[in-house]
């Protein structure tokens, strides 16, 4: 790190070691600062954009993304990753849309979530018991899920599909015309995820496995069980996110959520969860998902064409991750 100390901000950080420690232990503080900065930039450049309606749009888009990013956060903690969230989420949204006409909403949702849990079970067996690399395992599972969903689509092509009105309300409606309705689903989920990570023994086992797998095994953790349950939780969360995506877009499509997989990984990374495992939390991820959504909004408010938006999106993710790594790097 000798070369890095020449940069002024790090110089300041080393002088005031407290600030750096604060950033490392509470990554959410600089992240909220960045979020505020982005909103400020929009306010300066396009003052007409920001109003209560805009806030609602941002939250409606950020909530499903932050649930997908929860899947990445909890799997990152053990040193894993879940790339099957896109296929699973698209699948559950699509299944409910095709089943709801015959089975009713509750049964359709139960079937879709059961399939999601089964997917997570298979992934968990592969990663936990057979020790297949999570990247490959979830990649392979997404091919399997996508293929089955396509077969299902061909069978169901006559009956047609429609996103149930309840999903449409949850995904894009609001309470008393102000509060986005999807917060009703999101707040309990976020609270449960944070409670699980911070207050339960299971949550500590996730950190322990990611931090030092051998030590956690010697301490008596049955890591295969922890990992099996982990990927089932991840698939369940992805399934619920799928309901919200289909409600938000009013589309039932087997590829609907595919383009959200990489942003979900980016949200967790920006939120300060280490992809190597053992460090991070869900609070940062939520702010990360908000930052990405506001960033997308900013780039489209400035009227950039799609390709330029993609280029800026990618560059900014690298820049934020780099700045973050710089600040928190252990010397």
């Amino acid at each position: 790190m000798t070369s890095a100390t020449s940069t002024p901000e790090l110089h300041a950080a080393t002088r005031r070691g407290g600030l750096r420690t604060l950033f490392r232990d509470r990554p959410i503080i600089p992240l909220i600062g960045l979020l505020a900065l982005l909103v400020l930039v929009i306010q300066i450049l396009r003052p007409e954009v920001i109003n209560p309606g805009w806030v609602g749009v941002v939250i409606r888009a950020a909530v499903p993304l932050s649930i997908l990013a929860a899947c990445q956060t909890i799997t990152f903690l053990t040193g894993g990753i879940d790339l099957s969230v896109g296929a699973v989420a698209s699948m559950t949204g699509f299944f409910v849309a095709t089943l709801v006409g015959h089975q009713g909403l509750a049964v359709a949702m139960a079937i879709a979530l059961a399939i999601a849990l089964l997917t997570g079970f298979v992934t968990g067996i592969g990663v936990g018991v057979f020790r297949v690399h999570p990247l490959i395992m979830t990649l392979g599972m997404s091919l399997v899920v996508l293929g089955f969903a396509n077969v299902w689509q061909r069978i169901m092509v006559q009956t047609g599909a429609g996103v149930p009105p309840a999903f449409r309300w949850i995904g894009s409606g609001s309470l008393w015309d102000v509060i986005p309705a999807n917060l009703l689903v999101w707040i309990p989920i976020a609270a449960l995820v944070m409670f699980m990570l911070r207050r339960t023994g299971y949550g500590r086992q996730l950190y322990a496995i990611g931090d030092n797998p051998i030590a956690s095994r010697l301490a008596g953790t049955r890591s295969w069980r922890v990992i099996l349950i982990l990927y089932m939780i991840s698939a369940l969360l992805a399934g619920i996110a799928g309901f919200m995506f289909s409600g938000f877009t009013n589309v039932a499509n087997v590829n609907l959520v595919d383009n959200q997989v990489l942003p979900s990984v980016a949200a967790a990374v920006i939120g300060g969860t280490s992809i190597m495992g053992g460090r991070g939390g869900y609070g940062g991820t939520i702010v990360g998902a908000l930052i990405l959504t506001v960033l997308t909004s900013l780039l489209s408010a400035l009227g950039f064409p799609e390709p330029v938006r993609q280029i800026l999106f990618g560059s900014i993710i690298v820049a934020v991750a780099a700045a973050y790594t710089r600040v928190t790097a252990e010397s």
Partner: protein
Amino acid sequence: MTAAAATMARPNPLLSVLRKNTWTLGLIGFLGVLLFFTKLINPTYGATGVQNLGIAVLPLAFAAVGQAIVIISGGIDLSIGSTMALTSVISAALMKDQPGEVGVAVVLGVLLLGMLLGLVNGGVVVFTRVPDIVVTLAMSFVWAGCALLVLQRPGGGASDWLKALVAGALGSEWIPKSAVVMVVIVALIWIPVSRTRLGLSIYAIGSNRLAAFRSGVSVGGTRIVAYVLAGLFAALGGLSLTASTGIGTPVPGPYTLMSVAAVVLGGVSLAGGRGGVFGPIVGVMVLQIIRTDMTFLKVDSNLATVLQGAILIGVVMIGSLVEIRRARA
């Protein structure tokens, strides 16, 4: 591996070559079985089928070689698909309606560009210390955006000599020209690299980065070189997309994830340090011929996707079971 070698009184060079390449040889055997099976279910499958196979695997084979080099060095490159799209559209846009000599210049320029893109990827990974998976994921947005800036929709063209380079057969009708081109290019680039200090360094940093560093290997430099080589092979993949389709498509194909799959199928450990580049090429052929067989059997193409995923998982499970047993022995 070392334990098995130690039990042998006199190491036989032929046996040790066999033992080092067990996985690849097994995979070639599997490919043979699959080809036999193809002939069985479709008796008309012949030289044309093999030629089509050669053309169909070309882009993914180059992508897999590039991915293999990065994975052997202990990294991963999730931007390969976007790099291929960018190099493909640039070559197609510049070659359209131009004489063949311009095409030669374009090809050389695009190969340099591929190396430059790899240099950016590797440089950012090394200098920012952000995990490679995150950097290359983000860079995949950047390169895909650049590709869309070059061409908004599929278009452009390819020089006739470039199209002729990958079409048809060479000598016997059973030897696709594309396969010869691929083997020659991969051998020309990879064999000199792998026989030198550089190749050894790539394996060393993938196997044990700290030990490599303490032995005097420039870890950062070697990682960057691995990404530069991956960029070069991605550019070759992009050029072969242009050559085989005659146009450039700005939207990245499924090459990034399929290249990771083929690399794992080809016996390269995702942990790094083990494997080669020829196994992944055979892996690509296996993946492609399974797809062809499914078409012959009139299996729903979606079930074929399911099967590809299942095979990928199954193969990796067997691989890791072998590794777990080896660790216990």
